[in-house]
């Protein structure tokens, strides 16, 4: 039987190429993402490792807040501590380190270098010790004067600077110029590119830029010859009990861990799309095998008639599947490496990654083979099982065309799946069970399978006929034939379309959610903020906000009625309720991007806004309040009513809160309000805010400006622009621009998601092309007849293309419907969470475009099969059996 299987494959090379292609693409994507995340992890670990490899120990403050994504906010330490550390025995050298993200590099084009999603720009002070210095000088010399700086060579190239140039740096105090005197890098000789953008200054300049007067972020220590890192760390810890001491190795690991976290998120995100692609590929493989096996019913029956056992026939099909899966998996692995290489180049614009070809890991290879072969065999097994159930004689006499369509068991199973899927979706949305996301995903898969595969055939035929109905007026026979061809094998049509349905469902879901979020943001901004202008910072990095002088200057502009500053900082709630929450689910508390340091008491992390009560509530509509803005004095705070109810607070209560700077403080709840505008649930008057947060946070992240009635708005804007003209990261926006800016990062994300889903759609198109090729082959005789009685090649091509368009539009239509259902379900849940804010909005224009693109894609998929069909030799076709 092995020989039979092998001969079958060789005899059907072209048919299997397309099946193989689907598996290859699916596996390639899966492997590619796996390989990529491995490469990223390695690169980042080694780069972070070499940056700090000279450190034998690190001394720092135990007070810390972790902002996630590698950004740690830790209380600085006083300069004087360096001297004390230096005197501990075993210390060769101790130097204070400034490491801060409070300044940005401005390129020669006047724009900030780097994006919000990329690695940070870090300000360091130059450490006068070759062992401790971060990185190595590649060219030039160290910064000796306050006006000199050193850049890492990649950033210098990106920004367009060379040695001797005047470099613009955007800091909180405005833009400054520095002379570029040196280029540095990582590794032995400074030729390795670092992950982050690094700017090095003299210690006083770095301290000024980092707003660390007579302070350092931490102390780097080099050991004397013969003193181990552990011994050194223990000695310092004993001498200075109020500090936190880490060995150099621990420090490096800690840094690597925080970066790896980000890489993990990135690779999980990409892997999801790998699995979507694979899921789509499954449909195509299954469908292709179904058609192949159906077309071979006669051959199978002949084998059975001459004495092959059912098991043997089954085995031959499984063998075929194994071989196809094996070959496709190998090719998929190769494709995966290529894909990883391409993705690496893309990610390389965000990070510096290791050069050279990505290498396969054993686990990536194992996954590829297990998934590739497993999926193919399972996909082949079901149709094989079905075909061997047909008694030999019945199969021999039957014309080998798969005509199965609608059966009762199909309706029953379809309905069961549909109900089960819906139930799981509902449970997932209702946040039930330990992992609602798994429930939601499982429910979504069941729902999709039931609608697309089990129930799809029920509607495929009527849908196909309905779709071509408007085109069949008069004597137009081509659309009629296309419609009938799509309708003749509803199961085949539905299964082929299903692959496209999955992609379109996801695209629709995301498009609807995106447009809803945009509409929600816009309506929230317009209905709750009554400012005329917003001074906004385009960077997220902590400490790169708007200089506090801007508010003062804005107030002085003629025609300005109000200018209201808002600040932002993380903090931790440590009241009884929050402690309970933290204890009940420590994993959840740790996952929060605002995890506090080890020394902090347990609680829930969140963020607060520092506001000026009088002006803030003039501009922001927060609905009904209990207490008035006047009550918000030093030592008090305001909270959204929903939060207050959750924690069981009433106006006048004392609430314990942990700050990185001042530790646990009892704040008095002076005011509650019904709705948060601008996203802040916790509002602290600036007096409370300033007293308790690090200097780093005491810059405005937004300033609302309201004009007097009838004021000359363009003139005001001109003057506001002038105030921030020095800082490229800061811009003046009207409310419309502000709303757009809020959702702008979202657009980048959407573009990436659409790109990744595009792959699933391409695989689906391969599926359509595959089915059409097989159908054309199956109908050779019929096509020959059509040509014989006078159908032109063009008409025949149009018939095949029409059929393809019907399948594509059918898949898209179902995808649109399911996507809209899913998005509506999600919106109901979101609305239940925060009533009145979420605006469900259908992006009609976008959905129409999606449908048109699908129809066009249908044309593309049909080009090959249509061309082949039109080139059939009429005589051979007519006389073929």
């Amino acid at each position, binding site marked *: 039987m092995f020989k039979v299987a092998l001969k079958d494959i060789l005899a059907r090379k072209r048919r299997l190429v397309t099946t193989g292609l689907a598996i290859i693409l699916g596996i390639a994507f899966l492997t590619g993402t796996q390989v990529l995340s491995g490469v990223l992890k390695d690169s980042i670990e080694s780069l972070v490792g070499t940056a700090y490899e000279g450190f034998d120990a690190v001394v720092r403050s135990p007070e810390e807040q972790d902002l996630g994504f590698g950004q740690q906010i830790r209380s600085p330490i006083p300069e004087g501590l360096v001297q004390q550390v230096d005197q501990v025995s075993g210390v060769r050298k101790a130097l204070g380190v400034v490491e801060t993200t409070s300044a940005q590099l401005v390129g020669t084009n006047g724009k900030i270098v780097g994006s919000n999603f990329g690695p940070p720009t870090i300000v360091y002070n130059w450490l006068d010790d070759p062992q401790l210095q971060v990185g190595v000088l590649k060219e030039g010399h160290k910064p000796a004067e306050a006006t000199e700086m050193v850049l890492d060579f990649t950033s210098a190239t990106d920004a367009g600077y060379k040695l001797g140039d005047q470099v613009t740096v955007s800091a909180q105090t405005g833009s400054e110029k520095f002379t570029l005197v040196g280029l540095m890098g990582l590794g032995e000789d400074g030729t390795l590119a670092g992950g982050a953008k690094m700017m090095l200054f003299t210690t006083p300049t770095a301290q000024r830029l980092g707003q660390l007067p007579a302070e350092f972020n931490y102390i780097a220590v080099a050991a004397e010859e013969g003193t181990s890192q552990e011994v050194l760390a223990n000695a310092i810890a004993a001498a200075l009990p109020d500090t936190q001491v880490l060995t150099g190795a621990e420090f490096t690991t800690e840094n690597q861990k925080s970066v790896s976290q980000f890489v993990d998120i990135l690779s999980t995100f990409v892997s999801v799309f790998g699995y979507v692609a694979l899921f789509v590929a499954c449909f195509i493989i299954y469908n292709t095998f179904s058609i192949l096996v159906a077309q071979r019913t006669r051959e199978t029956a002949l084998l059975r008639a001459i004495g092959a056992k059912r098991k043997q026939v089954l085995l031959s099909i499984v063998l075929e599947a194994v071989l196809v899966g094996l070959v496709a998996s190998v090719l998929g692995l190769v494709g995966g490496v290529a894909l990883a290489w391409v993705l690496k180049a893309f990610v390389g614009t965000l990070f510096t990654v290791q050069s050279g070809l990505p290498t396969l890991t054993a686990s990536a290879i194992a996954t590829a083979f297990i998934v590739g072969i497993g999926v193919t065999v399972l996909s082949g097994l079901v149709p094989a099982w079905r075909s061997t159930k047909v008694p030999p004689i019945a199969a021999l006499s039957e014309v080998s065309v798969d005509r199965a369509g609608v059966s009762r068991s199909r309706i029953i199973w379809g309905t069961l799946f549909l109900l089960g899927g819906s139930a799981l979706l509902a449970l997932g949305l209702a946040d039930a069970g330990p992992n609602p996301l798994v429930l939601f995903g499982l429910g979504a898969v069941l729902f999709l399978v039931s609608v697309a595969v089990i129930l799809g055939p029920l509607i495929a035929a009527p849908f196909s006929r309905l779709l071509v109905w408007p085109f069949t007026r008069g*004597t137009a026979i081509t659309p009629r*034939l296309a419609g009938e061809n799509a309708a003749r094998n509803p199961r085949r049509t539905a299964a082929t379309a299903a692959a496209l349905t999955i992609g379109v469902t996801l695209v629709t879901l995301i498009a609807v959610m995106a447009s809803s979020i945009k509409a929600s943001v816009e309506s929230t901004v317009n209905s709750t903020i009554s400012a005329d202008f917003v001074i906004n910072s385009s960077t997220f990095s902590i400490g790169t906000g708007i200089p506090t002088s801007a508010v003062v200057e804005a107030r002085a502009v003629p025609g300005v009625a109000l200018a209201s500053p808002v600040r932002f900082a993380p903090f931790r709630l440590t009241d009884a309720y929050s402690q309970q929450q933290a204890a009940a689910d420590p994993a959840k508390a740790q996952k929060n991007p605002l995890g506090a340091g080890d020394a902090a008491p347990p609680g829930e992390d969140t963020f607060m806004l520092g506001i000026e009560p009088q002006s803030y509530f003039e501009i922001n509509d927060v609905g009904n309040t209990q207490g008035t803005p006047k009550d918000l004095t030093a030592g008090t705070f305001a909270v959204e009513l929903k939060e207050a109810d959750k924690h069981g607070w009433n106006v006048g209560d004392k609430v314990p809160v942990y700050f990185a700077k001042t530790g646990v403080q009892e704040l008095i709840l002076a005011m509650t309000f019904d709705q948060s505008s601008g996203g802040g649930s916790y509002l602290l008057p600036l007096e409370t805010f300033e007293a308790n947060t690090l200097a780093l946070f005491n810059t405005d992240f937004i300033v609302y400006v309201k004009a007097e009635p009838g004021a000359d708005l363009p003139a005001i804007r001109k003057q506001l622009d002038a105030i921030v003209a020095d800082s490229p990261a800061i811009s003046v926006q009207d409310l419309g621009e502000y709303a757009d800016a809020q959702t702008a990062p979202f657009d980048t994300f959407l573009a990436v998601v659409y790109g990744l889903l595009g792959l699933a759609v391409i695989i689906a198109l391969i599926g359509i092309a595959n089915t059409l090729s097989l159908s054309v082959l199956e109908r050779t*005789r*019929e096509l020959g*007849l059509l040509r*014989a*009685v*006078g159908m*032109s090649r063009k008409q025949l091509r149009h018939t095949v293309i029409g059929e393809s368009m019907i399948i594509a539009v059918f898949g898209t239509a179902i995808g649109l419907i399911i996507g809209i259902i899913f998005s509506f379900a999600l919106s109901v849940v979101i609305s239940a969470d925060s009533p009145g804010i979420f605006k469900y909005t259908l992006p009609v224009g976008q959905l129409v475009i999606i449908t048109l693109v699908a129809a066009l894609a249908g044309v593309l998929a049909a080009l090959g099969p249509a061309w082949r069909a039109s080139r059939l030799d009429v005589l051979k076709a007519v006389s073929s059996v």
Partner: protein
Amino acid sequence: MSSSVTQTAAAGSIEASKIYGEGDTEIRALDGVTVSFEQSRFTAIMGPSGSGKSTLMHCLAGLDRLSAGRVFIGDTYLDDLSESQLTELRRDKIGFVFQAFNLIPTLSAEENITLPMDLAGRKPNKEWMDTVIDTVGLRTRLDHRPSELSGGQQQRVAVARALASQPQIVFADEPTGNLDSRSGTDLLDFMRHAVSDLGQTIVMVTHDPSAAAHSDRVIFLADGKIRDEMIEPTADRVLDLMKQLGD
């Protein structure tokens, strides 16, 4: 024994040759055949397997091309036509009936009958359609799909389709080959009727003497050449002649 080309010929060939392969493996399927088919006549082409009868018909019908010589339908020489002109000629001037698989399974009987005209974007002549449908006796079956019709009915639909566009000539390739004798006789009667009463021109390839007996004239082919011809044939005379030729 070749007939001369006459003014009333619906179709014909002049020194038609068809050669497959080259050198030692060369096969002459047609070897200088000159023949004409008169209008409003029912002609049968007979001959043993490999005699070239199917090849002759395929070339006459524009499904295949000659190696040498010419074929014509009416006043059009097929050898000068492009592929798409040939397709249009088949659609507008020629009717086809094959041995089996004559119908598009997704179309109803009526749609199958009007298919060539629909492909041309022409409206069928209502009167003629009625005549044809009544002649083949399928009025009650027009909405049925081919799979719902018997083999005989399917072939009658095929004949109706071949006649529906009022072609210059109808080619039938073993139209009764897959039918039982009763249905076969019925079908031949319809074809006879179409020629005698409706004035159609039919050329039929067959190897069945009793089928040939329904025609006005039988042409005998062997080894790619015309060997004999018989006017007003009967089944017995045809059988006799075939025995002679076979010797």
